[in-house]
């Protein structure tokens, strides 16, 4: 492990060890390669990099704070917990870091239309937001089931001028929305840019989205050094597709003393089968353009997932996470719906910060981990999104009508 240069991954074909790659229909091979070339070019282009930085600062509101949750840390009686406040970004989550980057790229490539898939609606809102700002036509694919569960985000997207298309195929959730977005793209490749919301999909998406999200880890690293004089002992982030986690982890991968925990959704429990934890309880396979760990049955069919948080309700995971698991650099674990819900309440009551249910999975793991560490240990938790969007879910679970 010591002699891995993480900058060498992915390879030219988009592989992280056996994972990643480009498993797509021939019609998309040309357009995806055109995207790779454009991304490789603009990632080195000072004008593009400066524009991205400027937008992150003045439109998103970066840098996001690294906040020492003193009261919660004291209550847990172990490590000092620092929260990376991605919930304070414009649109309320880390997703916008990536949609800004891809929308800027779409403009440079001369595309006039953007499409995206969304589950909880956070990526859809972040995409509709940047499309509004740049004057791009925007179509969001969303499973019919998710549209029903996330009515407010659907309305937000429509207010922003996006067309929200209900997806009626398959399980009518995030994976089916991604299938439908791919079908749109294969038909409209000439003028359309597909803004994938996580570190999955065919190369270059996993690497490109990681690079756009790595601002999280770069800031956290600097902030931790500035505030505490040293690097953190451990990082914790929730993992659905894994974009907020890879964004935090990646700038620390070479710092061997920094432990890393990726927290998947254990749903009703890993042994019930009702969960969304491919790294903890799935197997490698191929879906949505990459090889990675998947939730699948013995015949290779993708199975339905369950999580209290729609943003983690996805049967796959970014290929870099699959590789980091296999080489042992990151430990992947899982937290149940009940655990996440408890952490949602704890942070709200103890720190006055209402976390997204996705991020609550990471907080629940920190809740277990912190007491096992020394008082001077430093734990950085990615607070990837704010919880306002989840108030109806939480209230319904507690039998309260709002």
């Amino acid at each position, binding site marked *: 492990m010591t002699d891995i240069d993480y900058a060498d991954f992915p390879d030219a074909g988009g592989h992280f060890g056996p994972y990643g790659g480009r*498993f797509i229909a021939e019609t998309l*091979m040309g357009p995806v390669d055109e995207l790779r070339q454009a991304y490789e070019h603009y990632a080195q282009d000072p004008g593009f990099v400066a524009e991205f930085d400027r937008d992150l600062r003045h439109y998103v509101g970066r840098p996001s704070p690294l906040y020492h949750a003193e009261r919660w840390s004291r209550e847990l009686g172990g490590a000092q917990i620092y929260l990376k406040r991605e919930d304070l970004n414009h649109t309320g989550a880390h997703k916008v870091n990536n949609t800004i980057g891809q929308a800027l790229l779409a403009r440079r490539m001369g595309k006039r239309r953007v499409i995206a898939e969304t589950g909880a609606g956070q990526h859809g809102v972040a995409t509709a937001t940047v499309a509004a700002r740049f004057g791009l036509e925007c179509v969001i694919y969303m499973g019919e089931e998710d549209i029903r569960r996330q009515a407010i985000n659907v309305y937000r997207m429509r207010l922003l001028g996006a067309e929200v298309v209900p997806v009626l195929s398959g399980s009518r959730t995030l994976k089916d929305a991604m*299938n439908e977005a791919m079908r749109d793209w*294969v038909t409209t*490749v000439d003028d359309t840019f597909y803004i994938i919301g996580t570190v999955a999909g065919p190369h270059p998406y996993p690497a490109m989205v990681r690079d756009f999200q790595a601002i999280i880890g770069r800031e956290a690293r600097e902030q931790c050094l500035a505030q505490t004089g040293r690097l953190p002992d451990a990082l914790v982030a929730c993992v659905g597709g894994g974009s907020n986690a890879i964004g935090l982890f990646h700038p620390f991968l070479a710092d061997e003393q920094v432990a890393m925990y990726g927290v998947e959704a254990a749903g009703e429990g890993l042994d019930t089968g009702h969960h969304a934890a491919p790294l903890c309880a799935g197997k490698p396979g191929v879906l949505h353009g990459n090889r990675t760990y998947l939730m699948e049955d*013995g015949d290779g069919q993708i199975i339905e997932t369950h999580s209290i948080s729609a943003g983690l309700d996805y049967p796959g995971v970014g290929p870099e996470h699959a590789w980091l698991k296999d080489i042992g650099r990151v430990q992947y674990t899982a937290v149940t719906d009940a655990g996440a819900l408890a952490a949602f309440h704890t942070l709200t009551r103890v720190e006055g910060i209402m976390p997204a249910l996705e991020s609550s999975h990471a907080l629940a793991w920190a809740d277990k981990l912190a007491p096992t560490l020394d008082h001077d240990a430093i734990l950085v938790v990615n607070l990837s999104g704010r919880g306002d969007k989840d108030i109806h879910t939480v209230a319904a679970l507690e039998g309260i009508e709002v």
Partner: protein
Amino acid sequence: MSRIGARFDALRVEGRTALIPFITAGDPEPAVTVPLMHAMVEAGVDLIELGVPFSDPMADGPAIQLADERALAHHVSLRQVLEMVQQFRDQDDITPVVLMGYLNPIEVMGYAAFTQAAAVAGVDGVITVDLPPEEAGEILRLFREAAIDPIFLLAPTSNRQRIETICASAGGFIYYVSIKGVTGINQPDSTEVQKRVTQIRAVTDLPVGVGFGIRDAASAARFARFADAVIVGSALVNKIAELADCPAGIPSHVTGLLREMRQAMDEK
């Protein structure tokens, strides 16, 4: 020589274009498939494409998505599809059979186990929609050893270099996707398609079939004038869907359209 090569050689001598139907195995229920395959052969088809149902058929339009859902409601697996081919072979050892599907069921079964089982069952070729040659090294070697033809798609977005890359790995025939899009949605422009087929022929001696968007006798005949094969999928799958509740009528319903196509193609 494989059954596919032999069939195209024979057609070339006769000056005819191959008619290739696509059906999803197990749609609308498993018992329909093998009798339907025999009925289609009797109606004059030259090669059969059998779709392996998958939960997430990203390159397919609504017709074939629904066909996959109907088959999966009966838990039709890749192994069962191979059993169907084997059963078909009990009575027909001549008509080539090609499987068409997505990579994950093959990944889960294992490349070596799948290749061996497919060869034993009498599968002649495999189209894996989401497996480009760049990712196919290992399975191409196994297919070669088992004399199974790896059939690849070419698309309107494939440039000269990709045409060369794909033709260098391909066997059996080239499947030219006539439109940008998913199966069964848009009508292809036959002049444009003919131009592309000519470009492909300049690179390879393999027969070139045209599919995605051929729905009736007239469009089949139009493409038969220049293609080596005409592939019809969604139009047949829609016929099957119409009779999903009374499957006994499916073979005659499906072969009616195929006979019209066959006739129009032979009169081209």
